[in-house]
Each structure stands twice: as structure tokens, then as C-alpha cells.
């Protein structure tokens, strides 16, 4: 066992490790874990030790005497009922304290972000700033955050391990998660509640920056997209393709995607600043021209299940539209210009 541990356990880095929390919330979960862990180690050693001792010390020997037929011992029974009761009580106090701590409302002036789970991507809205984005959360370091979470379809669970525990997103309910990031950096996570075919592909990313960098990110996210007349010909052709109505209607870009001032779809991610995001397809692949083209060509090859239909006949995710290579190039160029 130790061998397996040393071979497999000591590599890294582990970007989604729960052992390296970077928020207050993650810290309290981690502390609780280690406290219980050491109790567990002691109990493990004592009980498994007693078991081992019993089977070795009292192994049958040839001509061994008939064992004394003991049926029980009341004092012992009471003792080993009280012992676990006592350990459990020691664990219960900090465990329950942590529950109430975590349930406390966010501090005054917390950054409220509305999170909506979709099959299979995350929508983030910053009502304070009017920012709408997808899959990549941007946060300033040191400011308390309150995520208000719901789902547009099935149940998802928002889990960024280094930020602390997960929380489910359910249609018709709003859940909260409160934490304060205390280090800058890039962090990754993923959906933790089985949500259909591409559950494994519902990834997320968070960028924690200084307040200044966060402010400039907000400024860029609230800026209007590049005016149409400053686009290149190729990009403008992409814009026209984007605005083209297709049959069936769900094959039209604008039916699902919003670009500020140009289209108003709400089913898919808001693309106003899609060119500025570092990943595509629910945080699955890096956002570059080649990946963008493959995604437009056949989304379900990258994220299985997007081409499936729901019970009412509507598409689960992005359909394979059947674009020509020229159209893909133009659309990709346009989308990349939306920074």
C-alpha cells in the first residue's frame, strides 16, 4: 500500500487539489478535514492493531486448549460504546460550528455573481457591472464573493476545489456559496453532479487578480464590440453569417447567442467578448483559431451530446450547422475579433 502511495501519490502538480485552499471557505473545510483525519488515523491504528493482535496472538495451535467460552462483558460493552461516542462528540462540535460559519451571509459589499448551469457550460453574470460571460470567472483578490446559483436545465454542481466545497445548481431554486479568495492565480474546477452525456466536459476556470487588473477586465467586458465598419472584410462576412437565419431556426447563430447590440439569444453563451476568453466549449479546449474552427465544424466531436435533442425536439447544445470551410474561416475570424 505504501508502495502504491509513493508511486502514485507524490507526483503533481495537482491543480484541483482540495489540500491547497485559496479561500477562507476552502481553508475551513481543509482544517476540518485534517482534524478528523488525525482522529481517523488514531482510530484506524488502534482498531486494526487490535484486530491484527487478536488474529496473530490467538491463532489456532495444534493441541491448543479449548478456549474459555466467554459470552460477553457488560463493563467492556459500556466502555466501547462510550469511547466512540466521545470521539464523535469531539468531532461534532467543530463540524457543526463550521456548518453555521459557512451558512453565514456574505459580508457587506460582497461581489454578487449569478451563476447559471447549462448542459454543459456555466453562465456568469455580474449584476453590479453588467458583465455577462461564460465558463471563466474573474475575481478580485480579498473581496468576499457571493455566488447565487441556479440551473437552466438539469442539476449541476459548481466545484472549484481550491475555493472550497461544491454547491448544487437546481432549476427553480437559488443556492448560495460565499468565499473570499486570498491569493491571485488561475484555478480550475468542473461540474460535480452528473448532468448528462458530457458531464465530464463541463469544466470551469477562475482567474483571481488584483483589484486593478479586475477593474480593467470589467472595463473591457463592458465595452461595446468593435464597430462593424472597423472589421476586416473576412470578419464582416463572419458577422453576416452570424446574423443569417437558417433552417431549422436552431441552426442560426443568433437564435442562441447574444452579441451586445447585435443579437439577443439567451440559450447559449454570450459571445460579446468571446475572443477574450482563454477557452472554448465549456472550458474544454484553448481558444485559438484552429480549435474554434473545429468547434464550428462539429461541436459534438469535441463535446459529445451537444447534437442530441431534448424531449420537446429542441437541441441540447450547439448543433452541427453544416458550414462550409470558407464560412467557418469567416465566422472564426469574426468571433476572434470580439475581444
Amino acid at each position, binding site marked *: 500500500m505504501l508502495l*502504491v*502511495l509513493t508511486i*502514485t*501519490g507524490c507526483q503533481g*502538480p495537482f*491543480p*484541483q487539489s*482540495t*489540500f491547497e485552499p485559496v479561500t477562507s471557505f476552502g481553508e475551513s*473545510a*481543509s482544517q476540518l*478535514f485534517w482534524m*478528523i483525519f488525525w482522529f481517523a488515523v488514531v482510530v484506524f491504528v488502534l*482498531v*486494526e492493531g*487490535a*484486530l491484527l493482535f*487478536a*488474529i496473530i496472538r*490467538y*491463532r489456532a495451535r495444534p493441541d491448543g486448549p*479449548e*478456549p*474459555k*467460552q*466467554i459470552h*460477553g462483558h457488560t463493563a*467492556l*460493552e459500556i466502555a*466501547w*460504546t462510550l469511547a*466512540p461516542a466521545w470521539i464523535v462528540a469531539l468531532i461534532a462540535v*467543530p*463540524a457543526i460550528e*463550521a456548518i453555521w460559519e459557512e*451558512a453565514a451571509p456574505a459580508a457587506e459589499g460582497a461581489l454578487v455573481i449569478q451563476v447559471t448551469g447549462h448542459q454543459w457550460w456555466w453562465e456568469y453574470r455580474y449584476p453590479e457591472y453588467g458583465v455577462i460571460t461564460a465558463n471563466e470567472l474573474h475575481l478580485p483578490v480579498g473581496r468576499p464573493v457571493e455566488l447565487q446559483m441556479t440551473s437552466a436545465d*438539469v*442539476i449541476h454542481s459548481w*466545484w472549484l*476545489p481550491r475555493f472550497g*466545497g*461544491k*454547491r*448544487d445548481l*437546481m432549476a*427553480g*431554486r437559488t443556492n448560495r456559496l460565499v468565499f473570499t479568495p486570498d491569493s491571485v492565480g488561475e484555478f480550475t*474546477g*468542473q*461540474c*460535480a453532479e*452528473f448532468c*448528462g*452525456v458530457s*458531464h*465530464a*466536459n463541463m*469544466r470551469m476556470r477562475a482567474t483571481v487578480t488584483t483589484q486593478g487588473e479586475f477593474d480593467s477586465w470589467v472595463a473591457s467586458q463592458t465595452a461595446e464590440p468593435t464597430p462593424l465598419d472597423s472589421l476586416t472584410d473576412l470578419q464582416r462576412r463572419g458577422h453576416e453569417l452570424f446574423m443569417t437565419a437558417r433552417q431549422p431556426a436552431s441552426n442560426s447563430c443568433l437564435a442562441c447567442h447574444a452579441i451586445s447590440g447585435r443579437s439577443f439569444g439567451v440559450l447559449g453563451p454570450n459571445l460579446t467578448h468571446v475572443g477574450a476568453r482563454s477557452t472554448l466549449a465549456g472550458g474544454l479546449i484553448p481558444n485559438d483559431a484552429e480549435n474554434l474552427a473545429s468547434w464550428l465544424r462539429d461541436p459534438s466531436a469535441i463535446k459529445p451530446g451537444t447534437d442530441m435533442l*431534448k*424531449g420537446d425536439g429542441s437541441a441540447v447544445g450547439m448543433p452541427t450547422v453544416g458550414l462550409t470551410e470558407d464560412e467557418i474561416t469567416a465566422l472564426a475570424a469574426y468571433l476572434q475579433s470580439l475581444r
Partner: protein
Amino acid sequence: MGTAATAHSMIQHAGSPTGIWSWITTTDHKRIGILYGVSAFVFFLVGGLEALIMRAQLMKADNTLVSAEAFNQLFTMHGTTMIFLAVMPLSAAFFNFVVPLQIGARDVAFPRLNAFSYWVFLLGALFLNSSFIFGAAPNGGWFGYANLTSAQYSPGMNIDFWALGLQILGIASLAAGFNFIATIINMRAPGMKMMRMPIFTWMTLVTQILVVTAFPVITVALVFLTFDRLFGTNFYNVAAGGDVLLWQHLFWLFGHPEVYIIILPTMGIVSEVLPTFSRKPLFGYAVVVYSGCLIGIIGWGVWSHHMFAVGLGPIADTYFSGMTMLIAIPTGVKIFNWIATMWGGQVRYTTSMLFAIGFVAMFIIGGISGVMHSAATSDLQQTDTYFVVAHFHYVLFGGAVMGLFAGIYYWWPKIFGRLLSEPLGKVHFWMMAIGSMVTFFPMHWIGMLGMPRRVYTYSAELGLESSNFAATIGSFIIGLSMLLFVFNIIRSVRRGPIAGRNPWGAATLEWATSSPPPVYNFSILPEVHSLHPLWTEGGVNAIPDEPPGPVHVPGGSYWPLVTAIGVIIFFLAPLLHMLWPALVGGALTVFAAFNWAFEPFEM
């Protein structure tokens, strides 16, 4: 029950009818036990194969061995199969074979109902697995969370197979549950008071009470689901005012007692095996009985510890944290009593004993990680990750399955009259124990280092490829150990040494009769004067080989099978969205049940 011969009585001596027809019409609890055991073991291998394919897929990051959809079907069917088609019916095999013998009865209270339970189980299991033929195996997880299972988000037949299959299996479990409660309460041999019942029979009783109380809950949940999908009701439809959490509450209200339905029988098995091979009575018999009952009761009050991430609020989380910690106490007490049973004994390392010790050792690990989950705040990191997968496999595989193998090696000579090979059995044990540790131990840190459950693929960036590789290797070691076991049983059936009545020198009544027991179980009914009838001078009267006169045993009947077929046909109606199977199946069920009820009382 009685020994008086009447014109309609079955008179049986050594030997019993053979041939397939005799098995199809059997109402003999021993044969039904064997049928349960063989079927469950086949499904155990199927579920194991599903696990191996999953482990092969997860062997490396970004692997493409199976598709996302196939993987989702595999983990759904692995969980569903292992719980409902393998572990529960394997326990049922022991309930059937062992309990009537342990209490000195000639059969169960309702032998034909018992046959009906088995046939409904088998046909339901085939119904569920036939979904593979249609490429529509269930794909919503064994927990089938609403609203992913709705007609909107899962329009295919996959979820119908699952929801209807579980309802069918529920019928089998409920019928068997009532049957065994009636049997244990009413059919004990003279002198066997409740507190003289063998511990396995006690745990069977507690389990069956849980079955008949918990299965109605999931049945309600499944009927709601079926109605939502079939008739457009809105129990789980948020848009129409329904609630997705209703499913989770109902499911786990059943699901947590279900965990104890799985583990209590094996706790009973281990509580038989440890004393026998320590040559000492079970330490604190009464305490083990009461702690089993207590687990059965507290097991009803912990369900929302599966739902800490749901956001039920601090009051609910506090309550369920506390109750979950509380259940650790009776569980710990059981473990201490098992160790104390061996303490001061003469511990014989038979294969069965090794599996029983393995059960205790593994169960301790699973129990401890269970307490770790009880702290809601840290569980928010663990729930829905591989840490949970590690936890419940220590309880259900290292625990329940190891315990079941302890039972197989223990009662095999009673069931078939021949011993299994001990050397092969020991190799099987060590391969399975080492395989389990290599498979499931790394999953603890795989989860804590950020890998969620139920993912068909994971990013190489997580740094978890080598750990997953180790887990895969371990799972294949377990797979090999099962091949060895299959070889062992084939070898034993052909040329295993003859076992005799009581090869282990055990204390309970099933060892007082010949191996395999005659169709009437005991030539004369035992009279019990002790908790350990075979270890106590005058604990039970001598049981001769031949009965002094004709013995009345229940005759065979094919009506239970016909009734079961009617039930299955009925369930084709909601599957196929057609009315006629409901009419045909319903009519056949009523017709067969009528014939069953008025069947002449003879073979």
C-alpha cells in the same frame, strides 16, 4: 407444518426429483436459494465486467476506449446491477438456504410466494439488462436524479427500462421481505426463543423489516417518475411547480436504509463465521443484536447526508451530520464485539475466516471514511468525488462482498455437500484483498485531488493518471481472482471432498442435519435448549438420518412462474407505450394467482 401424513402430503426420503422441470416448479427454499445464488453470481460477473471496462477507460487521461454515452450506461448499470441484481440477491440466496435451517423449519412460511419472488427477480433482472440489446441501457446513474431523468432531458427508453425494472425488482424484494418476516417470527423450532436465534437470522429479520419499509418509498418515487414520463404529470417538473428535490429526498430516504439492507446480512454472516473459527461464542450476542436493530432504526434518519451540497440550510445539515456520527457508535460496537470474539479464541485461518477477517478490516476503513463524510463542511469537498467512490467500495465491496464470500465458503459444503479447495480459496482471498486495496485505496486521494465521480474522461493536467492506472491494475487483479473462484467451484462440484454434517464444528442448527440437507431439512423437528445448540450438551435433540415416518413438505408449482410472467408482460405496457400488454399481463397475473390460490395441496 407437521409430521402427520395425510392423503395429500408429499412423502420424501433421501433423493429428490431432478431435471429442469423440477427446478422450474420448485418451492423448496434450498433450491430457490441456489437459484438466487447462481443468478446473482452471474449478474455479479456482469456488473464486474462493466466495472472493468470503466477502469480500462480511466486507465489513462483523455482515453477514447468507450464513448461518453457508453460510459454513462456502464456506470449506471454497474451500480444498479451490483446493488439490486448481485449483492441483494446473493444475500437472498443465504436467507433462503440458511434461515429455515437455522431456525429448524421445514421451509419458509409461503413457499410458492418464495418461488414467485425469485422468478420476478430473475425476469426483472433480464428486463433491465435486455436494454443493452436495444442500445438503450439506463444512463442516468443508479441514483437517477430528477430532472435529468425526465422525458425532456432523457427522451429515450433508457430511463424507462431503469424505472420499470426497479419497480419489478421491488415487487420481488417486498414479497420476499414479508415471507421472511413471517417465517422468522412464526416458524422457529420449539425452544428457539427470539434471543436464541442465530445472529444471521436476527440480521435477516432486521434487513427484511427495512426492505418492507424502504422499498415502498422508492416505489412511490419511481411511480411518480414513470407518471411524469408517461402521462405528463409534473412531480419533478420545476416549470410546472414540481420539485427536483422531491426525488432526492424520496430516493435517499430509501437509499440509506438500502445501504443497511446490503450490509446487515453480511454482518450477520461474519457474526456466524468468526465464532465458529475462533471456537468461541459471539462476544456480546445481545449487544450485537441490539446494535443491529439500532442501526436499522438510525439508518432511517441520516438520508440527507447524501445531500449536503444541495443547500438544505444549516439546521438540516446539523441534524444530518449529528445523526450520521451517531450511527458510527453501534457500528463501532459491532466491530469491537467481533474483535473480542476472536480475542482469547483458537483462530483457524480457513478461507471463510480470512474473508470474514478481511470484511472487518475493510469495513473499519469504510466506516472511518464514512465518519469523515459526516462533517458537512468538509463533505462538500468530498461528495460526488472519487473519495466517496473509495468510501462506499470499502463498505460494499471490501465489506459486503467479502462478507458474502465468507458466507459462500462457509455454507458451500452445507449447500452442495462438498468442500471447496482451501488452498485455491486462500489465493482467491489474497488476490481479492490486495486487488481491492490497490483499486480502492488510491481513489481516496484521486477524489481529494479533484476528480469528480461519473466522468468518462479526465484531463491529464489533474496529475492523476498514475493513480488511476494503479486503480485499474487493482481492478483486474480482482477480476482474475473471480476466475480462480469459478475454477474452484467447478472443481468442487466435480471432485471436492465430501463435507459431512458439520465440517467446521459450528454451533447452529443448519449443521445438525446432513449436507446437503434432505428436502424436508430435518428428519425430526429439532428442539432447541441453547443459543449454541451444537456446542452445548443437550442443546438439541439428536437428528437421525432417516425420518421415523412420512414427512409433509410443500409440493412444486408452476403457477408462481406464470404469475411472474404476467407481471413482466404488464410492465411492457409502460415501456412500449401500448395498452395491450397491460391487459394481457394483468389478466394472466390474475388468472395465475387464482390457480395458485386454489391449487390442490400436492405435488
